[in-house]
């Protein structure tokens, strides 16, 4: 097998792994936001896993990009990895990959500087994840023949379904959120309901109005 073919295989493989990792990262990010837990693991495991897998994904994407550039079968410039639609080869699909990567770089850099920057700005940039993943997904399906049939296609569709489900869960929660002006009334209502259910018993009220 020639060197260039090895690079090409490496690029395809790391790309697929990156897609799986990014799917996990996004779902974990939503889990963090919703204060969800992974069974049997402490809360900081969710936050740490989210962070660590995102860095791992970046590593895989770096290899994915460099091997694609180094491969000589088609000409892909390094610049086209970050400048959308600058590639001659597969302009559209690689362009989407570049957009997704740009968004990811913004998210990673701001997250590394998290303690030093404005909270609201950090959050706004981090929300770009909801754009970055679908664009990465489109890039993956469009530029990879592997993902377009067989069990790999099933796997890719599975990732999309998982992301859609997680995003729907997140949106549903946002829709259910009590606006700030109604929170006190909600606590009053909750407490009254709880008290009448457990009258006579000594109980600590565990329910809170989530913020």
């Amino acid at each position, binding site marked *: 097998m020639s060197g260039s073919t090895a690079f090409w295989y490496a690029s395809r493989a790391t790309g697929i792994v990156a897609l799986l990792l990014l799917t996990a990262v996004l779902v974990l990010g939503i889990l963090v936001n919703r204060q969800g837990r992974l069974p049997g693991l402490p809360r900081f495991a969710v936050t740490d896993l989210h962070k660590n897998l995102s860095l791992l994904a970046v590593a895989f994407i770096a290899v994915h990009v460099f091997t694609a550039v180094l491969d000589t079968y088609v000409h892909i410039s390094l610049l086209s990895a970050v400048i959308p639609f600058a590639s001659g080869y597969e302009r559209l699909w690689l362009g989407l990959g570049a957009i997704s990567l740009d968004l990811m770089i913004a998210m990673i850099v701001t997250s590394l500087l998290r303690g030093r920057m404005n909270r609201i700005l950090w959050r706004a940039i981090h929300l770009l994840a909801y754009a970055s993943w679908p664009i990465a997904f489109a890039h993956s399906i469009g530029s990879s023949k592997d993902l377009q049939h067989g069990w790999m296609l099933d796997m890719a569709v599975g990732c999309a379904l998982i992301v859609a489900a997680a995003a729907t869960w997140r949106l549903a929660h946002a829709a259910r959120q009590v606006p700030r002006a*109604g929170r006190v*009334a909600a606590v*009053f209502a909750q407490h009254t309901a709880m008290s009448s259910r457990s009258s006579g*018993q000594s109980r600590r009220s565990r329910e809170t*109005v989530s*913020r």
Partner: protein
Amino acid sequence: MTTTVSESAPGGAARQAAGLPRLLSAIPEDLRGHLARYGATPYRGHGVQTGVLIGDIEASGLTGRGGAAFPVYRKMAVVARARAGRKVVVANGSESEPASRKDELLLRLAPNLVLDGLQLAAEAVGATEAHLYLHYGPTPEILRALAERASRGLDGLNVTITQAPPRFLAGQETALVNRLNGGPALPTFQPPRVSERGLGGAPTLVQNVETLAHLALIARYGPRWFRAAGTDAEPGSMLTTVYQPDGGGSGGSSPPSQQSKCRVVEAEIGAPLRTLLSSGAETQAWLVGGYHGTWLPMPQATGLTLANDTLKRFEASVGAGVLVALPADRCGLTEAARVTGYLAAESAGQCGPCLNGLPRIAAGLAELAGPGHRKQTRADVERWAGLVTGRGACNHPDGTVRFVRSALTVFAPEISLHARGQCSATNRKPFLPLPDGMPTSEDDWT
């Protein structure tokens, strides 16, 4: 509003010797009358003279009259020495405490004193902007005073008037700044303090309108004059809003004509409280410091004075000068429960402990004030009180807990009575004044 100014408050001779009243004249004065009585606004001039006023304020020992009693010169000094192109001074007349009426009366009878103070403070700190933050917005008296001053070219800065929303927290410094910034009157976390970074990020001096009125007089008569009244540690005079059993007291959320009758009295700091509040058989307890204040038992508290020095023995302070003598025929527990319900409803709902704790405390108190209560409730209220103290972005939970804990102590006998389904009250009319309704939408905070 049926408030009367009292020139003949108890202790007349002592009051005259101390030079009271200082802030309140019997009739409202226009600018001409104001200038005739007090003389011209004593601007010091910019440059070298700036800061001299701050020295006088420091020597006078003037503390804030909005409730926190923070030394005025310290806030002024912070703003004065800040290096900023924009500096702001705000006269806080929001008077968000429902039982307080003194600022409203002061702004009606002596708006020029307040406006003098605003301009003098602005000059002393190098402010580029002046604001009036008012409970009722621009009143006729304020507008007239501003117009008269403008026609005489008296003021260095134009004054922008903003109406405060009728929220208990609207007068809190950071909430005030947020409102003036165009947002809702909600507190924010400190640091930074508003004197370092406030309106639009600029150093902002916020002072209660009564404080500014005192400042305007100190600028004319000097710190020694100010110290001729009051005590060494707490000099000067202060406006109090007094509620007495003989006032008829029909408070609660009744139409204005039936609002609790109260008197605004300017008193010397250190005056015995019994010269302001009745302490006989018709009174069952005192409330000092308003709805974030402290209930005091009778007769143990009768010897106390209007000074934080003596009040701190009972963990009380003068606050913004709201003084209540609760009639013996009322149920103190019910009054406390009503107010606590109001305080809980006025939580900004931004901080977990306050949001979760205050409604539960209020519900617990309501249960204690009802006929019979669960055994656990008293302990629950105490546990929640401990959980909210010091854990909010502002001191709303702390003040509420102070009010609640002192009520539970002072009205302990009443709690036992209610546990047996009885109540000692013969008069069910609410005494303490509260506004109608609970805030429900974001607009209620703007």
